């Protein structure tokens, strides 16, 4: 069986040379895969290149067997890839309900049933349906961002630092949610600073350095590795 997401030989950057070099990773349906690495390793660039926000200079991004590398971000979204950026991940001027509706943009016929599922997962989003997203707290906004991505009913979910800027309690809830969403069979590729917590809910992990994969292993093995903990998990351990 082919992986839900298969990235092969990907290189990408912002015009002045590539930041990500010849990178290959995979994520299967029902799998959570976390990518860790120091700042500047190219983690965000990688995730943006998969989503089509940054145009890859080389390589393939296969989703469900089809190569999406080089397509417009809106077209990649249409093929079932939902990317949640780290910042500016909601429409601040739009209401929570309108934000969710845009999540189902490519498939408006199913918006109502999907909204009910998202509301079941995040009951607060039903309560704040009429509020502008920009007026919500950081944790609530993150829920809107996450709920909007689920409205896509994606086969692949790309999360860039989902716990960034959240209080420890809210971050904990976010990781629980990621795990329960994953149980529905979505492949989740996540970049995360909170490496211990993220790897704790992941099946596999990659360590990225200087735009390349430095290590690929099961999440447990990465957590147990002395070398990795010294280099990247550091004082958090």
């Amino acid at each position, binding site marked *: 069986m082919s992986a839900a997401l298969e990235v092969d030989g990907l290189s990408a950057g912002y015009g002045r040379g590539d930041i990500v070099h010849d990178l290959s990773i995979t994520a299967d349906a029902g799998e959570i895969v976390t990518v860790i690495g120091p700042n500047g390793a190219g983690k965000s660039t990688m995730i943006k290149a998969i989503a089509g926000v940054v145009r890859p200079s080389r390589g393939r991004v296969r989703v469900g067997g089809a190569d999406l590398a080089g397509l417009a971000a*809106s077209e*990649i*979204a249409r093929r079932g890839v939902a990317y949640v950026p780290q910042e*500016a991940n909601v429409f*601040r*001027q739009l209401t929570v309900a309108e934000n969710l509706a*845009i999540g189902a943009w*490519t498939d408006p016929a199913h918006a109502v049933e999907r909204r009910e599922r998202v509301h079941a997962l995040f009951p607060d989003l039903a309560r704040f349906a009429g509020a502008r997203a920009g007026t919500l707290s950081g944790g609530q906004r993150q829920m809107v961002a996450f709920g909007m991505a689920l409205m896509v009913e994606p086969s692949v979910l790309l999360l860039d630092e989902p716990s960034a800027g959240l209080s420890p309690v809210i971050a904990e809830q976010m990781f629980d949610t990621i795990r329960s969403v994953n149980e529905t069979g979505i492949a989740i590729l996540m970049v995360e600073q909170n490496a211990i917590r993220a790897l704790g809910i992941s099946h596999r992990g990659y360590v990225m350095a200087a735009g390349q994969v430095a290590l690929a292993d099961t999440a447990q093995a990465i957590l147990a590795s002395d070398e990795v903990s010294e280099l990247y998990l550091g004082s958090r351990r």
Partner: protein
Amino acid sequence: MNAQFIVNGIVNAALIAPPAIALSLLFGVLRFPNFAIGGYITAGAFIAYAANVEAGLPLWLAGAIAMAGTALLVWLSDEIVFKPMRGSDPVTLLVVSIALTFIIEHVVRLIYTADVRGFDLPLQRPYRFGDIRITQEQIELLVLAVVIGIAVHALLAYTRIGKAIRATADNPMLAEVRGVSTAQVIMATWFIAGALFGLTGVLAGLDLVIEPLIGWNLTIPIFAAAILGGIGSPYGAMLGALMVGLAEELTILVLPSTYKLGVGFIIIAILLLIRPHGLLGTPEIRK
């Protein structure tokens, strides 16, 4: 006497409001101040003039042709001028748009000279309500402005393309990754704005006179209204138009009417000093 100034101010506002809304929509999606609006409005006025006076069509039909023709011209100006420069610095695009307005204006002048013209309409006495006089055209102008305000609101709040425009104005990258095609949103916005500029040309030709500078003379009050309301906020633009329209007319009470044109500049200057994001706009948060 003063009531007449208020009526004139409201009529003035009704003329400024639709293009201010259009400018606000354009800025929200394209993120640069487009000074070509003067040229677009002039083009709208002369297309209507050609259809009404030269081709002998009734004014309502000439107006519809002007709206469609200007929308097409505005879209073409994007295809030829702005599209190849997408992503350029806003100041560069601003200068380019000023050049574009001169080009459109002078093409019109080449064909029609600088003569002052008017639509083919029977002269009518203004209606009188006590001391207040108002013409048939001014009443039509008021009604149209209200209808356009409601229509733009309905478009933005309830239609799929309206929601796409708001989402793209709010967060273009996120809209794109949720499947909203930025290219389609930009095209729709140019067409909607173009139709509103074309209509403004017709209405300005009704209320004032038709000449190549008709659009340029409206440019500053339109910008003042859009900035006053918070540029990128169409509802703010309606409020801004009302305030600029009244301010311009009421200035005549205390200053010679030649200073009327300066009012827009003064409003822009004061706003940029004390509330740069306008009345209803939101300040941009940058990290």
